[in-house]
């Protein structure tokens, strides 16, 4: 399985090992971390809710689509669920290819699609004690004002 959901801290070393392949000269990693602010508000921690059956099947599908477009040898992605603190790794994508260009492009595609297609929801807990579900990604297409890096 190249896509997985983790309810505990992601083991980076194991993840890197899963991408080892002597045919590959270029390996790209994207790591998404919990940030201390969003939309001008201070964030204390966040929770991810994941609907696993479909998150896993869609995640595998996204990686398969990338494989049809770019010639890489290995790709993997792990997304967290549960409560995360500032600086925690929320998601990691890794692609190993013979050359860097394919690895960069495929990694970019995988993270972009995963953010908008998988049934995963983020609830931010703010410094002022409030909390709310975040829906940045597709809001952009409907004219909402969200700043999202």
């Amino acid at each position: 399985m190249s896509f997985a959901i983790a309810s505990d801290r992601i083991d980076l070393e194991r993840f890197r090992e899963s991408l080892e392949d002597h045919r590959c000269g270029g390996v790209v990693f994207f790591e998404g971390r919990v940030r201390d602010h969003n939309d001008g508000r201070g964030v204390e921690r966040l929770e991810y809710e994941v609907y696993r059956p479909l998150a896993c099947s869609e995640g595998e599908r996204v990686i398969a689509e990338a494989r049809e477009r770019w010639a890489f040898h290995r790709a993997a992605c792990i997304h967290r669920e549960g409560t995360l603190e500032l600086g925690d790794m929320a998601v990691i994508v890794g692609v190993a290819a013979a050359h860097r260009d394919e690895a960069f492009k495929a990694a970019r595609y995988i993270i972009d699609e995963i953010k908008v297609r998988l049934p995963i929801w983020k609830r931010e807990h703010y410094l002022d004690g409030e909390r709310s579900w975040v829906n940045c990604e597709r809001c952009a297409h409907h004219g909402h004002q969200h700043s999202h890096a």
Partner: protein
Amino acid sequence: MKTVTVRYFAAFRDAAGVGSESVASNADTLRALFQECAKRHDALFEEQAALVAVNDQMADWEAGFASADEVLFFPPVAGG
């Protein structure tokens, strides 16, 4: 009349006050079913940017559904 199980996630579950329920409906499409459910809870459900799945397969809002299906309503997602 078709009877289906409807499941709500994240913000939809909070708005509906339940995670799932049995719903009897004459709706032709998933969109119409969604609108009935929104009315039923008088909740701020908007299908704009939301996703729908049936029996663990992503589905189209204009698709139909059958009795005993499990319909999943997903609010706008925010992974990553």
